């Protein structure tokens, strides 16, 4: 990289009208199926071309962080489920990891494996439903989404029988997990994982070389690797630009260093690469799951020294992060020695990934905005907090 990276930090270039007519200002959202929740964009259009786009947030704002500061450490655990309500297991993990850093807690081996299994199952269902949503945004209404949801349903059934809830799992604790998975659950999980590649094969046949999909996604919403790094983009979006940065490899948290898996990388940073990144990551997740099932040791699932109730970490601060399905999910905690965190901060990946939304959309048509937004993969529960 020859350019100093701070030179890239400037705002997107202003575009001037090619037509002499006035710009048309459109308010897209907040109530629109393809905005994935209550999200609004103020778009200025020159004909059909986007010349300005300003996202509007806050429709789902409930000041999650303030609520986190007024409750105990354990009390925030079920509330993290509501951040990215597609991936409650990884939200739990990121929070538990940060508290474990803050209070120096060790996690038993079996719990670490269970965490990996559940996080990778979460990744599978998140990526599968994202592909479904993206296709339905592009006009393939219904069928691909239902195919994806059929698979997601099987995984949610597994979550339900383990944690008691399909989406709001509240499964992890500081120093372990809440309930152990029995041998029959493992058998069922193995079956779901073994059947998953068949769905992927079928799905990829439908989408990968589909002419309409290629026209709609290739060369749309291109992003350079330098901009992606500078704008804090993480997760599959960053890797679609060809930057090899996966926290499972870089930080090696949990027991990830014990698994063999590859990090798929894109080449162009366009919507097609971002979409394919999800499909390829699902294949790697299946590999990780199979290894985890094989290696899963017996033993306790909770660190017996941890007192969950009346939990008081020592004075200090910690920032912990994991590779969530949407990107780097981090929690920044400051403890003043009391039962409540003094500062409880969530670093939401999809909120920060939206920083470049305007850059990606400029010069494309209105219809492309929906594809670009879909390929970023946002969940408003996490964006607005």
């Amino acid at each position, binding site marked *: 990289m020859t350019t100093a990276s701070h030179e890239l930090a400037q705002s997107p270039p202003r575009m001037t009208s090619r037509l002499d007519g006035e710009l048309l200002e459109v308010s897209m959202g907040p109530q629109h199926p393809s905005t994935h929740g209550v999200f609004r964009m103020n778009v200025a259009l020159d004909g059909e071309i986007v010349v300005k786009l300003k996202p509007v947030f806050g429709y789902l704002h409930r000041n999650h962080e303030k609520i986190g500061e007024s409750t105990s450490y354990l009390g925030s655990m079920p509330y993290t489920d509501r951040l990215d309500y597609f991936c409650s297991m990884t939200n739990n993990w990121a929070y538990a990891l940060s508290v474990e850093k803050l209070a120096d807690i060790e996690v038993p081996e079996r719990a670490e494996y269970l965490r990996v299994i559940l996080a990778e199952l979460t990744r599978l269902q998140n990526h599968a439903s994202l592909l479904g949503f993206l296709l339905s945004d592009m006009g393939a209404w219904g069928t691909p989404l239902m195919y994806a949801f059929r698979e997601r349903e099987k995984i949610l059934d597994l979550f339900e029988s383990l944690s008691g809830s399909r989406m709001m799992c509240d499964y992890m604790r500081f120093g372990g997990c809440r309930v152990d998975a029995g041998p029959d659950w493992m058998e069922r999980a193995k079956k779901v994982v073994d059947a998953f590649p068949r769905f992927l094969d079928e799905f990829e046949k439908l989408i990968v070389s589909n002419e309409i999909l290629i026209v709609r996604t290739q060369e749309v919403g291109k992003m350079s690797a330098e901009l992606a790094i500078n704008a*804090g983009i993480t997760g599959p979006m960053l890797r679609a630009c060809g930057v090899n940065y996966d926290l499972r490899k870089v930080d090696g948290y949990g027991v990830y260093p014990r698994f063999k898996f590859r990090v798929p990388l894109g080449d162009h940073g366009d919507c097609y690469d971002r979409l394919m990144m999800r499909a390829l990551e699902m294949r790697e997740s299946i590999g990780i799951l199979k290894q985890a099932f094989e290696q899963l040791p017996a033993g306790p699932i909770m660190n017996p020294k941890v007192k969950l109730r009346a939990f008081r970490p020592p004075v200090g601060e910690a920032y912990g992060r994991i590779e969530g399905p949407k990107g780097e999910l981090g929690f920044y905690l400051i403890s003043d020695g009391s039962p409540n965190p003094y500062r409880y901060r969530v670093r939401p990946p999809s909120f920060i990934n939206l920083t470049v939304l305007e850059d990606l959309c400029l010069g494309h048509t209105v219809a492309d905005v929906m594809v670009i937004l879909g390929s970023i993969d946002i969940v408003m529960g996490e964006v607005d907090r």
Partner: protein
Amino acid sequence: MESLEQVKARAELAVPGARIDIVPNSGPSQQASLLLDNEHATAVVRFLCDDPALRLDSCSNATGVDWLDRTVKKKVKVKKLVDGVEKEVEETQEEFFPGYLEAVYHLYSIAHKHGPLVIRLRTPDRAEGARLPSLTPIYRSAEFQEREIFDLYGIRFDGHPDLRRILMWDEFVDYPMRKDYREPDDYEYEPTPHDDILEKAKEHHSARPQLDGAENITAQQ
């Protein structure tokens, strides 16, 4: 990555006049931070970003923290004359620490795969209109996060290209993440000109009268 002391020494050498303090972290996470002075903060961060050995090219997380005024009571042994005899007496002394607002940034290097380097910026006080230099000209990722800090903590960032409220609505006053924030008891309450309602309105708005103009409505009576 080099130790914080090394980073501090090199940054102070590269940016003449910069004052950098190391803020220790007493917890077990081993994440101590660098406190930068506001005048040279952007130059120092630019150095951290571009230095080939550090190359902290990604600002992962930016957030605010509110520290209230606090007094710490300490027991000190003092020699005093008691009934004409010098004795050692325990006395409580109070030390006052003024409050401030803080912006915390977590910098990582994607090129060298190391981090985090935690940097902090502090305002002189907690007053309305407290200012800090913006890091958005260096890291695009701070754009929305600094807007969020402005929205929830009320720190104004000099040099931010588009500093508006982001999560709360534009007409909202006050900063909800501050530790002394008091929530209005009803956001949609509108006083009407009747005696008992006016009484309620006075009570309703008494907590923050200078903020929402309700005192003007009741004063017309």
